C-alpha cells in the first residue's frame, strides 16, 4: 500500500498533470499561485517529522515495484533525507513565490515552466528519499532531464540550447557511471537497498569491485555537483530563468552529488581512496571556482562560479569528515574529524540560504534594470535599498564575515582543514593553505558583488529601464532567506541538536557507543585560535586586493584562451559528431532496398547459420497429418499469385496479387481452426490493401529494368535465402521440444483470468504489459506518419 511519503514523492508529478488545464482555463490567475500549494503542503508534511533525535529509527515505507528484480519503491526518511526534503520543499515555496512575480503571465508559456519545475521537485524528493538504488537512479536522471528542459526553457536562444545540451551530456554521463557503480554494488552485496549495503559494508570492503564502484559513484556525484573538471556545465546552465538558477543550480540539484556522497560515507568512509578523491576534487573545485568568479562580468556567471567553488568546499568537508570512520584513528581524533561533517551540513544549509538570496537579488536587477552586466551597474544603493541590504547579508555571509551564518561555517571549515593537516603528514599543509587562498578570492568577489553593483557611479545611460526597487512580491522570498542567514548566526544551535546531531549519527554509524550523542554546539567565540587568525588575514589581504583590483585583474588575460576545458568539450563533441556521421553515412543510404538487404541478410546469416551450425534441421513427416486436396489447391494458388506478383508489369496487378496471398493465408488459418488469426489476418489484409491503393497514387511508375545485374543477383540471393531459411525453420520446428511447452499454463485461462478465449486472455491479461506498450508504439507510429505528411505539406506550402 502506498504510504503518505510515497504520495509526497508522487504529488508533484500528479499535480503537474493539472497544469495545462489550469493554464488553459484559468488565465486570469498566475499559474504559480496554484503551484505554490504543492511545495507548501509538502513542506508541512516533512516538517511534521521534525525535530529528530539520534535514537529515533528512520521511517521506512516500502511498495514492491519489480520484486523479481529486487526493485522496491522504498521510501526512507532519516535525518539526512529530512534535511534535503525540507530544503527542497522550503526553498521550493520561496522560488515558486518569486517566480510568480518574475515570470510574466502574458508572455511566457507558464504551463511548461511549472510542469518542468514540479517534475524536478518530485524527482529531487525521489532522489533523497529512495532507499533502492535503481529507483534513486531513475529519479537522479529525471532531475537531469528536468534541468535540461528548464535550461532550454527559452529555447529560441542558441545559448540556452547549448547550455541545456551541455548540462545534460555531462550529468547523464556521470549518471551512467553511477548506474554502473550501483550495479557493481549489487553484484558484490546482492541487494539494491542502501540500508542493506550499509549493513554489509564490511563484507563489501574486501570485494574486488569495491574500488571500481566507489570511483564510478564518485564520478556520478562529482559531475552532478559540478566539480572540476566537469564544472563547465554549470555556468552555461545560467541561461535558465533566474528562479531556476536559484533553485536547481544552486540550492538543490547540484547538491544531489553532495547527498549521494554523504549517503555513502557509511559504506566508503575511512578509506584513503575515498578521502583523497573527494578532497582533491573538492579543493581544486573550491579554488578554481573562486578564481574564475572574479573575472566574470555577468553577475549570474559570477554566482555560478561561486556555486561551483562552494560545492567544492562542502564536498571537501564531507571527505575530511568521512575519515572519522578510519579504524586506525583513536577515538579522540575520530571525533575531531567528525566535526567536518557538522561543518559540511551547516554550510550546505547556509549556502542554500545565502546563495538563494543572492540569485534572487540578481534576478531582481535583471528584471528591473534589464541587465546583469557588472560594468553597466553601479550606484544603485539609493535606488534599491532593500536589494542592497539583501546583497550585503548574502555576500558577507558568503565571504565568512560576522554577524552572518557564513562566518560560523567558514570557521568550522578551517577547523576541518586544519584537523586534516594536523593528523596527516606535513605536506598536507596544502589543504588549509589552498582553503585560505580560495577564501581570500571568495572574499574579493563577494565584495565586488556588493560594491561594484550598489556603490560607485550610477550609469543610467547604460540601463534599459530607470532604476527602481522591485515589487514587494519579489522581495519577500529573498528577505525570508536573508533572515534565515542572520538567524542562523545568532541561534545556530536551534537546528544543530534536532537535525545535525542525528544526521551525524546517520552518516557516521558506529562511531559512538549507543546512547551517547555528538557534541554539536556551534559557538561564536573560541578564543584567539588559528581559525580566527585566518579569517582576520582574509579580511586584511582581501580588502587590500579588492581595493587594488584594477591593478591586477589584467593578470587574467594571460590565461590561455585557447586551451580551456570548454573548448576541449566542444572539440570532443563536434569530433564525435563528425566521426559518427561519417560511419552512419556509409550504410544509411536512404534507399529502402538497401535496408531490407541488411535486415534480411543478417536474419539469414544468424538464424540460418545457427540452424546449420547446431545441425538443427530435422524433417520427419511420419507424425504429420495427411495433406488434403484443397490444401494443395490453396498452396498452389499462393505460389501462382506470388509468381504473378513478381512478373507483373503493372503495380496494380502486383498489389492485388499480394493481397490475394494474404487472403489465401487467412483461408489456411480457417482450415487449421485458428479463427482469431483468420479474422485478424482478413481485416489486416483488407486495411493494408486499401492503404496500399491509397499510396499507389503517389508511387512512381513501376520500372522493372532498373538496377544493374549484380544488384538483381543480390536481391535474388537474399529473397531465396529468406524463403529457404523460413521453410527450414518451419519444417524443423515441429520436431524440436527443447523446453516444456508453456501452453498448458494458458489453458487455465478461465480460472486465472476469467476468460474463455485464451488468445485474448494472453493479450489483455497475461501479457497485458506487452499489449499496452504495443498500442503505445502503434499510436506513436501513427502520429509519426501523420506528422511526416503534415510537416511535408506545410513545408511545401511555404515555398
Amino acid at each position, binding site marked *: 500500500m*502506498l504510504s503518505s511519503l510515497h504520495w509526497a514523492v508522487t504529488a508533484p508529478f500528479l499535480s503537474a498533470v493539472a497544469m495545462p488545464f489550469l493554464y488553459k482555463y484559468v488565465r486570469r490567475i498566475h499559474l504559480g499561485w496554484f503551484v505554490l500549494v504543492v511545495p507548501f503542503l509538502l513542506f508541512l508534511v516533512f516538517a511534521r517529522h521534525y525535530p529528530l533525535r539520534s535514537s529515533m529509527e528512520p521511517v521506512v515505507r516500502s511498495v514492491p515495484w519489480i520484486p523479481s528484480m529486487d526493485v522496491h519503491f522504498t521510501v526512507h526518511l532519516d535525518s539526512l533525507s529530512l534535511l534535503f526534503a525540507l530544503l527542497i520543499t522550503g526553498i521550493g515555496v520561496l522560488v515558486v513565490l518569486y517566480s510568480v512575480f518574475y515570470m510574466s503571465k502574458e508572455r511566457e508559456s507558464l504551463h511548461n515552466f511549472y510542469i518542468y519545475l514540479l517534475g524536478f521537485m518530485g524527482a529531487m524528493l525521489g532522489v533523497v528519499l529512495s532507499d533502492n538504488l535503481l529507483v534513486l537512479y531513475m529519479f537522479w536522471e529525471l532531475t537531469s532531464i528536468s534541468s535540461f528542459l528548464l535550461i532550454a526553457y527559452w529555447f529560441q536562444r542558441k545559448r540556452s540550447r547549448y547550455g541545456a545540451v551541455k548540462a545534460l551530456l555531462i550529468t547523464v554521463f556521470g549518471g551512467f557511471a553511477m548506474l554502473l557503480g550501483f550495479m557493481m554494488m549489487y553484484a558484490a552485496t546482492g541487494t539494491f537497498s542502501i540500508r542493506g549495503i550499509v549493513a554489509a559494508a564490511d563484507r563489501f570492503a574486501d570485494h574486488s569491485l569495491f574500488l571500481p564502484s566507489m570511483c564510478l559513484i564518485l564520478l556520478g556525484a562529482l559531475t552532478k555537483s559540478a566539480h572540476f573538471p566537469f564544472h563547465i556545465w554549470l555556468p552555461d546552465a545560467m541561461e535558465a530563468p533566474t528562479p531556476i538558477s536559484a533553485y536547481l543550480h544552486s540550492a538543490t540539484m547540484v547538491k544531489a552529488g553532495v547527498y549521494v556522497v554523504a549517503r555513502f560515507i557509511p559504506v566508503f568512509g575511512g578509506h584513503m581512496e575515498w578521502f583523497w578523491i573527494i578532497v582533491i576534487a573538492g579543493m581544486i573545485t573550491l579554488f578554481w571556482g573562486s578564481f574564475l568568479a572574479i573575472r566574470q562580468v555577468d553577475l549570474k556567471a559570477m554566482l555560478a562560479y561561486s556555486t561551483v567553488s562552494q560545492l567544492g568546499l562542502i564536498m571537501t568537508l564531507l571527505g575530511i569528515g568521512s575519515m572519522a570512520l578510519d579504524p586506525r584513528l583513536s577515538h579522540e581524533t575520530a571525533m575531531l574529524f567528525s566535526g567536518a561533517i557538522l561543518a559540511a551540513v551547516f554550510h550546505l544549509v547556509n549556502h542554500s540560504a545565502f546563495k538563494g538570496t543572492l540569485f534572487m537579488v540578481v534576478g531582481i536587477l535583471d528584471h528591473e534594470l534589464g541587465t546583469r552586466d557588472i560594468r553597466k551597474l553601479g550606484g544603485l544603493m539609493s535606488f534599491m535599498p532593500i536589494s542592497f541590504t539583501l546583497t550585503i547579508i548574502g555576500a558577507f555571509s558568503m565571504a565568512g564575515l560576522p554577524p552572518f551564518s557564513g562566518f560560523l561555517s567558514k570557521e568550522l571549515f578551517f577547523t576541518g582543514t586544519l584537523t586534516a593537516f594536523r593528523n596527516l603528514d606535513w605536506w598536507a599543509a596544502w589543504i588549509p593553505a589552498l582553503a585560505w587562498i580560495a577564501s581570500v578570492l571568495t572574499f574579493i568577489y563577494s565584495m565586488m558583488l556588493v560594491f561594484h553593483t550598489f556603490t560607485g557611479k550610477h550609469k543610467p545611460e547604460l540601463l534599459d529601464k530607470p532604476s527602481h526597487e522591485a515589487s514587494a512580491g519579489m522581495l519577500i522570498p529573498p528577505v525570508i532567506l536573508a533572515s534565515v542567514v542572520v538567524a542562523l548566526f545568532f541561534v545556530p544551535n536551534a537546528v544543530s541538536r534536532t537535525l545535525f546531531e542525528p544526521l551525524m549519527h546517520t552518516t557516521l554509524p558506529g562511531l559512538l557507543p549507543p546512547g551517547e550523542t555528538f557534541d554539536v554546539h556551534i559557538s561564536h567565540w573560541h578564543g584567539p585560535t588559528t581559525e580566527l587568525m585566518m579569517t582576520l588575514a582574509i579580511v586584511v589581504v582581501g580588502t587590500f586586493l579588492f581595493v587594488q583590483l584594477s591593478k591586477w585583474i589584467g593578470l587574467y588575460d594571460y590565461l590561455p584562451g585557447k586551451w580551456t576545458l570548454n573548448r576541449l568539450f566542444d572539440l570532443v563533441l563536434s569530433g564525435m559528431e563528425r566521426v559518427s556521421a561519417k560511419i552512419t553515412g556509409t550504410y544509411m543510404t536512404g534507399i529502402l532496398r538497401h535496408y531490407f538487404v541488411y535486415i534480411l541478410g543478417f536474419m539469414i546469416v544468424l538464424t540460418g547459420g545457427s540452424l546449420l551450425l547446431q545441425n538443427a534441421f530435422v524433417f520427419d513427416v511420419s507424425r504429420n497429418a495427411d495433406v488434403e486436396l484443397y490444401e494443395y489447391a490453396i498452396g498452389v494458388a499462393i505460389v501462382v499469385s506470388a509468381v504473378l506478383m513478381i512478373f507483373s508489369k503493372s503495380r496494380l496487378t502486383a498489389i492485388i496479387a499480394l493481397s490475394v496471398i494474404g487472403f489465401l493465408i487467412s483461408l489456411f488459418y480457417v482450415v487449421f481452426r485458428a479463427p482469431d488469426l483468420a479474422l485478424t489476418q482478413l481485416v489486416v489484409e483488407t*486495411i493494408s490493401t486499401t492503404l496500399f491503393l491509397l499510396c499507389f497514387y503517389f508511387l512512381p511508375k513501376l520500372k522493372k529494368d532498373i538496377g544493374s545485374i549484380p544488384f538483381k543477383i543480390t536481391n535474388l540471393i537474399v529473397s531465396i535465402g529468406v524463403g529457404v531459411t523460413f521453410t527450414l525453420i518451419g519444417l524443423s520446428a515441429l520436431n524440436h521440444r527443447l523446453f516444456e511447452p508453456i501452453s498448458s499454463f494458458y489453458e487455465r485461462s478461465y480460472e486465472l483470468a476469467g476468460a474463455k*478465449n485464451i488468445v*485474448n486472455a494472453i493479450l489483455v491479461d497475461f501479457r497485458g504489459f506487452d499489449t499496452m506498450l504495443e498500442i*503505445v508504439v502503434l499510436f506513436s507510429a501513427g502520429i509519426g506518419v501523420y506528422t511526416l505528411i503534415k510537416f511535408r505539406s506545410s513545408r511545401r506550402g511555404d515555398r
Partner: protein
Amino acid sequence: MKFTDVILQTATKVLAFIILIYAVYVLFAGHHNPGGGFVGGLVTASAIVLLYLAFDTRTVRQIIKADFKWVGAAGVLLAVCTGCAPLVKGEPFLSHSYIDARLPLIGEIHLATAVLFDIGVFLAVIGTTMTIMIGISEDE
C-alpha cells in the same frame, strides 16, 4: 477521392452499419469467443474506410466529427489508466479483476476490467489506422 457510384453508396449505407455492429460484437465477444479489441478496432476502421471510399471526405467529416488523433490518444490513456487503477488498491500494475453480476433486464453478466483495457486497445487501433489513412488520403 471524388466520384459518385450509386451502387457503392447505397450498399455502403447498409453495410457500414452491419460492419460496425459486427465490430462491437467482436470487441465484446473477445472475452470468451474469437475477437477482441485489436480485431474489433480494425473492423471498425474498415467500415469507416468504406465510408470514405463511397463518399467524399467532407461528407464523412460531417457524419463522424471525431478527430482520430484524439481517439487514439484516448485509447492509449484508457489502457494505461486501467493498468494504473489496481495500484491504488495496492495490487501490481495491470492486474485485472472480474465479477459475475446480476443486472435487471440483462440478467447474468460477467464484468471484467480486462474489457476496459480491451476498449483502450480498440480505440487506439481505430485512432492509429484512421489517422494514417486520412493523413495519406488528404495529402495533395
